[in-house]
């Protein structure tokens, strides 16, 4: 009984997808209650306020992570000071793309986790690997209940000299790598990283590489905003930079006198 109604829900959403190219915040709830018989109140069916890509790389001394500070409401760039990279305990950083309110929920879970970890007061502490594994379990369990936390997360950190960088998606897909990106970053940033990333990047080289990726995203991702933060975590500790803007370059020869050679255009 449950399965057929879930199947009906999925088929119905596909039909809706065709009718509306992308679910927008103006999609009303009535349309869905017509299709589901249960009074499902708590499901995140589509995101409202979203953050775009997060990029993370390992470098010589630890992890560098970059994200812009935009929170889009569909096609409107509504919020421009959203911190999408946060500290988790002594050893880890988390960056999130996707639904901002779900990210805030995740931060509450992590806060409780770290609190209990500290309450043991026994010299042991949760490192980035443990946080990553824990979040994988959380995301996957929510996915199984058809009530996902609509985020793609990047977790990075250093513990006892070991650098760790991993990601979890909203359906619980998780992996570890030397460089990680979410969303559009997968398509626009990772090719750059595959070419130019090295094990022994210095801090300055790492930041330059990340800025190159973020600039590319700024040009090509419509939900990107030109206000970014770069966070660094090493064995010694963590710093999140103040927000700053990237220089952009529009002096391309094709943009000078763009209409020359095109009869009748202005």
């Amino acid at each position: 009984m449950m399965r057929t109604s879930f199947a009906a829900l999925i088929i119905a959403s596909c039909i809706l997808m065709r009718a509306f190219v992308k679910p927008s915040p103006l999609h009303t709830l009535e349309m869905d209650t017509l299709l589901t018989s249960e009074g499902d109140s708590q499901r995140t069916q589509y995101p409202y306020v979203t953050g775009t890509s997060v990029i993370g790389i390992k470098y010589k001394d630890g992890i560098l992570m970059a994200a812009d500070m935009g929170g889009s409401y569909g096609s409107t760039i509504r919020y421009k000071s959203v911190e999408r990279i946060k500290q988790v305990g002594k050893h880890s950083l988390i960056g999130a793309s996707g639904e901002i309110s779900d990210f805030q929920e995740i931060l509450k879970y992590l806060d409780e986790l770290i609190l209990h970890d500290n309450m043991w007061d026994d010299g042991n502490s949760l490192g980035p690997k443990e946080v990553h594994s824990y979040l994988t379990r959380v995301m996957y369990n929510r996915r199984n209940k058809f009530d996902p936390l609509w985020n793609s997360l990047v977790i990075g950190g250093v513990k006892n000299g070991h650098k760790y960088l991993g990601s979890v998606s909203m359906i619980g897909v998780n992996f570890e790598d030397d460089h990680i990106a979410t969303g559009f970053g997968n398509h626009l940033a990772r090719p750059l990283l595959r070419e130019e990333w090295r094990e022994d990047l210095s801090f300055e080289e790492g930041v330059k590489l990340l800025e190159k990726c973020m600039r590319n995203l700024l040009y090509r991702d419509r939900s990107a905003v030109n206000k970014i933060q770069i966070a660094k975590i090493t064995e010694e500790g963590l710093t999140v930079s103040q927000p700053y803007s990237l220089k952009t370059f529009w002096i391309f020869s094709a943009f000078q006198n763009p209409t020359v050679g095109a009869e009748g255009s202005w």
Partner: protein
Amino acid sequence: MFRNQYDTDVTTWSPAGRLFQVEYAMEAVKQGSAAIGLRSKTHVVLACVNKANSELSSHQRKIFKVDDHIGVAIAGLTADGRVLSRYMRSECINYGYTYESPLPVGRLVVQLADKAQVCTQRSWKRPYGVGLLVAGLDESGAHLYYNCPSGNYFEYQAFAIGSRSQAAKTYLERKFEKFPESSRDDLVKDALFAIRETLQGEKLTSTVCTVAVIGVGEVFNILDQKTVQSLINEFEISGEEAPTNESAAEQSGGDAGGAAPDQGGAAAEEEAAPMDI
């Protein structure tokens, strides 16, 4: 004087402020056969005396692997010990599943202690009648803990529990200062010596004892009988004095006499108990 009046329930205090049922539970630990543990900075060794009830039966298992990095030796009601080992294994596996990381021993020990405490404060329960020597490795090194039926736990450099454990403790007290820097093999040797002390003159063979080791680079494993017997032979301690000059010459007279005929029978006795696993 008032022991019989206030010892019916675990939830009844005596006028002197004691819980007799809990103390009786600790007695049960003292009646069980001996178990000892000792540790260095990088390794922990557990050993116990395993006597079969009769020649026809197998002996009870008193050492359990809880995870790759944690093991436990028990003394007292082995059934209670088995149940607690299952709990420990369950906790380790759940933690490993969620965090992909080994459960720190210290935390497992506290969870065990809290579980034991619950049984001292419910009228429909009874305390666990088993003492546990928990050996484990975590970020901060090698650890050995002792969990009481009372719900207390202590960390030790070396400890012995069960019947005639005082003899082992005396030996360990003499030697414990050099344990932190001991090598793995020296630790095993000291464990076997300590077990021999509790046997009070009986011959030490691999059929009466079990030894387990855990250390950096070595997952928790129970040494098999052949290995233990060859270690015993190697260290020449089956019935003889330890090579390091021990001034306390307990049992030296009796042992020297029994040594010669024992050597001949040593090999044959390995096959003595038919149900040895």
